[in-house]
């Protein structure tokens, strides 16, 4: 390490980052015992789906937008891409409902909820731009149907669903970047604040004599965000 001056921006950013998220918080090797339900699986499943979407989408992008229409391999990867998107939305919706019923915004975690909710909302046009970039009948029909809603609120002036070139750019670059940035912020916030404790934990802990804590739960279930 060099003897960087205290005024170094780099040092300040590093110190702030390590203070906010020390390595043991960023990559923990333990979870509170209350993190014991299958509902926790759906957070990490959402990220896993996003990973498969980006991987399959990257293969489609490497070969160009027409490839999947005339090759079996291309169609296979297009199908993987489509089903990964369906899985992504399914597990994300279950994840969101789970977090809602856990009131997971408690304890200064409102930003965790907000980033998650915005991710869902940004994922919708990310998928839509994919559907209208397909260069098939679905793309023709969906784009001519979707234009009216977007035009009615003026969005169509700068986001034209019948312009394949523009939609493809949004789909393979701009919106995926937005989703990845949002998911990253969401996960970092989860790691910083930890998994939200059970509702009415204080009230229940109050039933336990001072100095004692509840018995641990068997470590059986998976854990996630």
């Amino acid at each position, binding site marked *: 390490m060099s003897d960087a001056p205290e005024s170094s921006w780099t040092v300040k950013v590093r110190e702030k980052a390590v203070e906010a998220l020390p390595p043991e918080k960023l990559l923990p090797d333990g979870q*509170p015992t209350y993190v014991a339900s299958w509902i926790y699986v759906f957070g990490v499943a959402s990220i896993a789906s996003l990973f498969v979407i980006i991987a399959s989408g990257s293969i489609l992008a490497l070969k160009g937008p027409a490839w999947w229409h005339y090759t079996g391999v291309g169609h296979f990867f297009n199908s993987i891409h489509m089903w990964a998107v369906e899985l992504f939305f399914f597990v994300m919706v279950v994840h969101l409902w789970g977090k809602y019923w856990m009131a997971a915004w408690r304890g200064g975690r409102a930003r965790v909820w907000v980033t998650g909710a915005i991710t869902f909302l940004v994922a919708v046009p990310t998928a839509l731009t994919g559907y209208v970039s397909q260069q098939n009948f679905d793309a023709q029909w969906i784009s001519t149907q979707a234009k009216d809603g977007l035009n009615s609120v003026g969005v169509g002036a700068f986001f034209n669903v019948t312009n394949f070139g523009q939609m493809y750019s949004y789909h393979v670059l701009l919106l995926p970047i937005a989703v990845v940035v949002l998911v990253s912020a969401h996960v970092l916030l989860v790691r910083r604040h930890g998994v939200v404790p059970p509702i009415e934990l204080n009230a229940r802990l109050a039933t336990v004599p001072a100095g004692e804590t509840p018995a641990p739960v068997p470590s059986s279930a998976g854990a996630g965000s």
Partner: protein
Amino acid sequence: VSVLRPKDDTRPWTGGYQPYDLVKEACIAIGVIAMLAVILTVLFSSPDDKPSTIAQWSKQLPVNFVTAAADELNGTSGTAEYGPPYNHNGEGQHAAFIYLQKWLGVSHPINTADDYVIDPLKTIPNDAALQSALAEYQAAPENTQKAWSEAYAKPLNEYAEAEEAEKPLPKTVSLDPATDTVSVQASGAGPVPTMMASLLSLAKSGGLDGSLLTSRQFFQTDYTKPLLFMADGGLLDKRAEAQHLGGDEWGMMNETGSYPGQAWLWLYALWYQIEPFKSSENADILVMLMMGVLSLAFIAIPFIPGVRDLPRWIPIHKLIWREHYAAAAPPAGPRPARAMPDAGS
């Protein structure tokens, strides 16, 4: 301010911790999701119905094509009267005093008469009758042009209305199966019948598909003009209805075949199925504004009294954390003394 502040009954966890391998869990999750995607792919593949072309449209539904083209010429088609962002022939939709469509202006200008009829016809070489008809049409005053195109469109629209109502078709419009040409008995249509016969011929040859894509540059990626022209016609609708993709059947959230489509748009599509949205002339902006408000509310759930409290009132959390609550509950008999290990990370 305190009303907006979410109730916080949390405090730093001082209880037990269990081993957790985050990286391993993420790797397993990716493997499982990838495997599921492969299984679904093998079982169901994905839809890829070929796109329609203007050439197909003009061959399969020549009367419908000529009707749509006549409406583009006389300025009564859906695109011609759309307003922003395509032209100034309408104000677009509004909600109360909100005219977002009008305020954002015309960003993709389309003059349906010129773009869909006149300019493509100019590309046809060596057709003296067409050149003469075009010259006559363009030299005529605007009201004469209007009178000619309306006279030609009238019997076609009557034919379309009868066809839609499944009534006997008027004999003023006929299709010659031998030449596959459309005859329209329209008096006072001037040069329009000649122009439309040439346009139909150009469309059948595939020339109109290419003509609508060419503009100032060689490479093209903007399909706005041909798509809007096709949307004014009947082929896309016909294919969509056959696949149950109509707006009254939850529209664009579906896709061809028995695939789930964009099921996440269900709430957006729902409003189009019910009143007052269903029959409103401003349904699109009303639905979009409604979804905008609901989206903001969705983001702001932690700050909305009542909505943020439901999870406490409806105790689904007791199911989620049942093991924890069972372990934390005081035992019925004498409590066994159990010490917790120190907190880990």
